[in-house]
């Protein structure tokens, strides 16, 4: 290989490496606060609040916020959970949330503990004996299933979701379901605005 060829080869490799490194690294780095771009601002077409309580004093209060971004209709659901005691007859899920199948659940943030992790959750902080099951038509998030270490108190759960397709709902309606173990299921119906 001649020297000129080596130079061309070196420059080609440098250019490719630079482009790849810039594109890969720039996507994951934090925004530059001085670049003048500012945060992204998204419109919120729907918010919905709900409260679900049981006869034994447990309750969950929550809010659903759906907003428009470049993926379509994304959103999150926040739940504040409280229960005073654990009944001996409780053996199923402490809190169950069903998300309509139009959404995929991307993140769950919670202070429910103690922290549990295994291969499913990797090395990340997880939810104590909680499960997330993909079920046709909806995603089910369960907190505290068959859990002997339940400790009464107040907890926070946030669920982030992104569209798994076009979000039209069933006749423009999305149905979320919330259920505490000792209560009846609560359907939270969200009416979607006309987005045409």
């Amino acid at each position, binding site marked *: 290989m001649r020297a000129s*060829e080596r130079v*061309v*080869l070196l420059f*080609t*490799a440098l*250019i*490719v490496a630079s*482009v*790849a490194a810039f*594109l*890969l690294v720039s*996507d994951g780095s*934090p*925004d530059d*606060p001085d670049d003048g771009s*500012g*945060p*992204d*601002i*998204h*419109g*919120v*077409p729907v*918010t919905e609040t709900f409260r679900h309580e049981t006869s034994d004093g447990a309750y969950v209060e929550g*809010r659903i*916020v759906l*907003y428009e*971004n*470049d*993926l*379509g209709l994304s959103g*999150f659901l*926040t739940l504040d959970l409280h229960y005073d005691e654990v009944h001996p007859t409780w053996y199923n899920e402490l809190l169950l949330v069903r998300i309509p199948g139009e*959404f*995929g*659940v*991307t*993140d*769950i*943030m*919670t*202070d429910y*503990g103690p*922290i549990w992790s295994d291969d499913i*959750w990797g090395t*990340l*902080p*997880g*939810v104590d004996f*909680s499960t*997330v099951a*993909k079920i046709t038509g909806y*995603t089910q998030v369960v907190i505290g299933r068959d859990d002997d270490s339940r400790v009464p108190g107040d907890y*926070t759960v*946030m669920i*982030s979701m*992104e*569209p*798994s*397709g076009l979000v039209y709902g069933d006749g423009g309606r999305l149905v979320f379901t919330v259920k505490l173990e000792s209560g009846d299921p609560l359907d939270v119906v969200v009416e979607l605005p006309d987005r045409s």
Partner: protein
Amino acid sequence: MKSIGVIAVVAIIVTASVLWVQGNRGEEFDPYDYPWPDVWHVTATETFHIDTPEGAYVDGEIVLYEEPDGMSGVLSAYFHYEELTPEMDDYGLTVCIPDEFLITDVMTDYDEPGKIVADRVPGYFHAVYIGSSWSFAGFHPGGYCVVVEFEEFGDIDESDGVLEFMIGLHSDNIVRPVIELPLDGERS
């Protein structure tokens, strides 16, 4: 020269692949590519409330959680007012985030995006103003929600661990929720 040509073709393919991957980020979410959601530990939560003499109010909550690259958080505020008075000659709602964080997204149903301002103010890294005084013509009584997402910028462990937020409704109705974090690697 033949080897140079081969290498150049490979280089073009690699570059094109990177660009293609980059360009496809943000595509439609496929839940079956994500068998399990990520689960993050919530480090702290704090609620706040404002009542004004005119009957306006704000209800909100701050949630901080740990991600692999640092602490992130969400501040959600829901505010309501029945009427505008001359004394309200100021911003409608102001949300200030401490300078350990950077605001990444603002979600709101306040329907005049041009009247939403995200800015940098002394003592705070970013502030979000909803409905400033010059926008009263389009700022109607009612109920609105604002959700601010932010992520760690810098190193919270090198600060004093005291995070002070500020939420203000019009001129004189201000609350300063404070979250004290355990430091020395005990955050999570």
